[in-house]
């Protein structure tokens, strides 16, 4: 709309030292790590935790926590962008690449639905989840991931808005047809690319 509208008296505070090319439109950098969840934080004991890959795959997979923890791990340093407008730069994680998890399963579908403790789901085209772009992370800043931030393990898909990085992930379902997840059916964009400002339905 009205591209010429000026907010009378607004100057803004442009003190951020961050490289503007790293900040998607409409975002601002925060030093802390806000928590956003739709419900209570689940606390699944590690001895009951497992991770499953199933659906349109040649060979479904299941890992206990110990097996998962012993898979090849990667150090990941990435910028993250929440649809509620905050971005956090150079966050440091450790986790397992989705490529590593899908390789033995040999998926044939085109979409990934992540299912989480607490009932949360999110959907991703397989090309957004593979090719070194997505992980299941279980350490943050050299510490085990705290429950309120998604521990023991969460999806990490930093090139999309952070709701796609589903907390408390337990099951990756490979499907042929896309299926909007929790926020995607509650008004939020189906893909969520922050650089295109794909925040809400219709963006």
């Amino acid at each position, binding site marked *: 709309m009205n591209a010429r509208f000026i907010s009378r008296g607004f100057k803004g505070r442009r003190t951020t030292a961050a490289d503007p090319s790293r900040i998607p439109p409409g975002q601002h950098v925060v030093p802390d*790590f806000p928590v956003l969840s739709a*419900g209570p934080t689940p606390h699944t004991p590690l001895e009951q935790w497992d991770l499953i890959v199933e659906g349109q795959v040649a060979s479904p997979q299941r890992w206990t926590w110990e097996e998962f923890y012993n898979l090849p791990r990667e150090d990941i340093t990435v910028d993250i962008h929440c649809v509620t407008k905050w971005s956090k730069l150079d966050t440091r994680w450790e986790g397992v690449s989705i490529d590593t998890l899908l390789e033995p399963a040999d998926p044939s579908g085109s979409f990934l639905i992540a299912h989480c403790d607490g009932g949360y789901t999110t959907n991703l085209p397989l090309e957004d989840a593979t090719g070194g772009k997505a992980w299941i992370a279980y350490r943050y800043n050299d510490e085990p991931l705290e429950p309120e931030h998604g521990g023991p393990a969460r999806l990490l898909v930093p090139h999309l808005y952070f709701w796609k990085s589903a907390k408390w992930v337990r099951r990756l379902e490979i499907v042929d047809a896309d299926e909007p997840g929790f926020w995607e059916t509650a008004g939020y964009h189906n893909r969520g690319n922050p650089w295109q400002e794909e925040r809400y339905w219709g963006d």
Partner: protein
Amino acid sequence: MGRLSWRLGEVVGSIAETPSVRSLVLAVPGWERHLAGQHVDVRLTAEDGYQAQRSYSIASAPEEPTLMLTIERLPDGEVSPYLVDELQAGDRLELRGPIGGYFTWQVDQGGPLLLVAGGSGVVPLMAMIRHRTAARATVPTRLLFSSRTLEDVIYRDELERLAGRDRSLEVFHTLTRRQPEGWTGFRRRIDQALLQEVAWPSTPNPLAFICGPTRMVENVATALAAIGYEPARIKTERFGPTGGSS
């Protein structure tokens, strides 16, 4: 569904709620009816084109002709000081919405309803209370509201008035930092014992909305689950830092 486009609202009124919180009343031509609990995105543009965006919960009922936003001035904020201290009647504000389809309540969802607020977390819950009143609903509702001091209690008079004339609405205050002389309300942070005293029992299956600072929301949601509330009926919205580096 079409894109939520940016539009201009005009400030037609403002209310100083507390020393750090102000409500803005906006006339927004063509505003589509929102749901109680939804928010809007606000965008400020400086003369050189620099922009800043934030999200704010809607405080007004869907039934009201104007849109109310209630904003707390954050000490280090970029947008909130402008909205609380600078914006005046007659000024315009760019916004888009309504946004959010989860932390919402309509009277036909029923109850019993438990609303737990910390500070300005009361804003989306107030929209639910106002909606409930506007719809003349009698859904049994309890609001448990944590503020630092009596002066920090947002909507204090209105809440008192509403609860005074509606026996199905109960309001409980707790003041965590300082209490006036003769204060008979609670005087500590919301914990499980306090919830056990105030919250609906877990049958018949109450619906809970919690909004406030992260630590409070985390504690209350965990305590309600422990009391036996169904996790899928505990809806949370949080703001603010975690208090740690992660």
